[in-house]
């Protein structure tokens, strides 16, 4: 049986560019026009703002990694080296839009305005999530991989049906792209024409598994065409390219154009979390080669050459960074009093007899002179 020729449908897309879309070369110079993928360079003022936010985010990230090494946090997945993608994700959205992040996207949350301490209380081990998603239009950071991409599709679909122009941006890693939920999210979004942007940060390793053992496609952005949506392959260490492409994808979604898949080709400089040893799975040379492509240094050179950034700006950024680092240290060095009885709250909307009984049991145990309570969960 021969297949009929399928007529093109709205949203059907062509393959992404051969080379990653890029505006700023690793040496800070403007990339040739044919590397821009048809996108326009964002206004310089926006790039200055990106630079400041990326710098502050990096200082925050290194501070939290240090605190984790000191044992103040149970774990912390660093995004060092991925600031361009992380901050562009946050900057591409309007205030009413929603971000659906993973566990690694802490600095994107921070940039969205979520309070540092309430984000980090998750990693410190106080509570699973300590911020109200509705306050910042940020969904809980998802640890299961790619599951939150489906939540983003549902949220965006509901928004469309309610006549709201909310766009949802879901963040995934290269490892998450192998999960069934990623496929289902791409497919549902395209079939439902949902206003969603999928950002895959391909940082080369899923914990220790390199991308060559993760997928066989040329790029992850190539997958988009199979779902009937546009896909863009972007230099994830170029803040200008990330901002231009994500903004365009968000606008495309808001205008009713449906979802877009964006791959940020980047690198995780730090280990997956403090508990793995990257020397077992990658060479130092490789890491160094990526440090030479650093997103912040690159943008700084670009802006300096245009006299949009100078020593005064550098001082101001440093001041803001140190201020945040100090307040984060203070917050994480404090040991908040936790109420053990709160574990029984927020399980169901109504009281449940069995939980009230268990709560009373723990309460009595806490009140007794010699509580039969262990030293807590493993750290």
């Amino acid at each position, binding site marked *: 049986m021969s297949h009929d020729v399928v007529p093109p449908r709205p949203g059907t897309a062509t393959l992404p560019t051969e080379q990653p879309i890029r505006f700023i070369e690793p040496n800070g110079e403007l990339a040739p026009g044919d590397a821009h993928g048809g996108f326009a360079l964002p206004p310089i003022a926006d790039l200055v703002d990106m630079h400041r936010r990326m710098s502050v985010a990096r200082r925050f990230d290194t501070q939290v990694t240090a605190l984790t090494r000191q044992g103040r946090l149970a774990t912390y997945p660093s995004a060092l080296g991925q600031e361009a993608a992380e901050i562009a994700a946050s900057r591409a959205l309007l205030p009413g839009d929603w971000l659906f992040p993973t566990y690694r996207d802490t600095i994107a949350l921070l940039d969205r305005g979520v309070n540092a301490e309430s984000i980090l209380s998750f990693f410190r081990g106080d509570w699973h999530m300590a911020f109200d998603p*509705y306050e910042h239009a940020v969904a809980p950071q998802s640890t*299961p991989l790619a*599951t939150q991409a489906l939540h983003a599709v*549902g949220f965006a679909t*509901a928004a469309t049906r309610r006549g709201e122009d909310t766009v949802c941006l879901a963040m995934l890693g290269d490892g998450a792209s192998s999960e069934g939920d990623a496929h289902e999210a791409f497919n*549902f979004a395209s079939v439902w024409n949902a206003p969603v942007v999928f950002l895959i940060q391909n940082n080369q390793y899923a914990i220790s598994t390199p991308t060559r053992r993760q997928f066989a496609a040329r790029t992850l952005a190539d997958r988009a065409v199979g779902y009937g949506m546009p896909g863009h392959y972007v230099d994830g260490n170029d803040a200008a390219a990330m901002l231009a492409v994500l903004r365009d994808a968000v606008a495309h979604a808001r205008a009713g154009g449906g979802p877009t898949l964006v791959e940020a080709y980047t690198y995780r400089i730090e280990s997956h979390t403090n508990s793995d040893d990257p020397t077992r799975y990658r060479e130092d040379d490789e890491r160094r080669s990526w440090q030479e492509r650093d997103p912040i240094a690159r943008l700084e050179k670009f802006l300096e050459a245009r006299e949009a950034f100078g020593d005064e700006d550098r001082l101001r950024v440093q001041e803001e960074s140190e201020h945040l680092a100090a307040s984060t240290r203070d917050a994480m060095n404090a040991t908040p009093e936790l109420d053990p009885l709160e574990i029984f709250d*927020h399980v169901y*909307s109504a009281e*449940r007899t069995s939980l009230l009984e268990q709560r009373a049991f723990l309460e009595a145990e806490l009140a007794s002179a010699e509580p039969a309570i262990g030293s807590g969960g493993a750290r």
Partner: protein
Amino acid sequence: MSTPSTRAAEGRTASGQVTMAAALGQALRHSLEDDPNVVIFGEDVGPLGGVFRVTDGLARDFGDQRVWDSPLAEAGIVGTAIGMAMNGMRPVIEMQFDAFSYPAFEQITSHLAKQRNRTRGAVRLPIVVRVPYAGGIGGVEHHSDSSEVYWAHTPGLTVMTPSNPADAYSMLREAIALDDPVMFLEPKSRYWTKADLDLPVQAAPSNRAAVVREGTDVTLLAYGPTVATAIEAADLGADEGLSVEVVDLRSLSPFDDETIGASVRKTNRAAVIHEAHQFCGYGAEVAARVTEREFFSLAAPILRITGFDVPYPSPKLERYYLPTAERVLAALDTWEW
């Protein structure tokens, strides 16, 4: 909203009786009418009306913005429902068949059940997952599983299973109105059970068990598809001079210790009947809870009459697997009376 007043739309058969499938359909219809945020989606729930026709006519009468066919992907159905509920909707989704829900296990157990807890109450997920479950209809592999324990074991989920048309209507309405996620298990072998009913009907609250038949010698604890089995056993037992009380659990989570405890204190004997495998099955929880609380009123150990610990058998062999009234009575005969 006015709807076509055909007999089918009213959920009544030509004889004036309502099947459980029709009662469920009416509950969905009335919920769609009452609340514009209620939406229904899943595989084949649109124009086909679901493989069991529970959603018959709903897509036609409410349009494809309220009732629609989703891509064939269970994790996708649950995952997108979670996002919709986060944004103000009240999705009622269908898993089509019990074992088809397993691809959605992660979305159900890691997100649907936990989102309220991990956000300290900020995110409510008023979602009903309808699962046609259990056997007895000659279904092939993966179409007859009893999946209740996976859900009942998960904190954050409410698990209900009706056994008759009135409960089906009333409990589904209640489930849709609840601000928590509900696993709503529909015993598919009872979809065609009929009752004389004028809908809407208000049955007992869904979190309470119901004594569906009074007796003094033994309490049979059953739910969903095995309530009918228990009643049949009670009838047979009566012929032998045995007075059997039948309790329909209705709610698997929460567990109604009160109603069940009162019945056991009256009869001093109890047996649990379910289709699911015995090992680590729901009956183990029932037996343990009742033993812990009512040990001194028990005259005999609590029995479990269940499916065997084998994968659900093929259609021609399922009758050897399913608990029957005769097996229930034979089990009761093992006690010293």
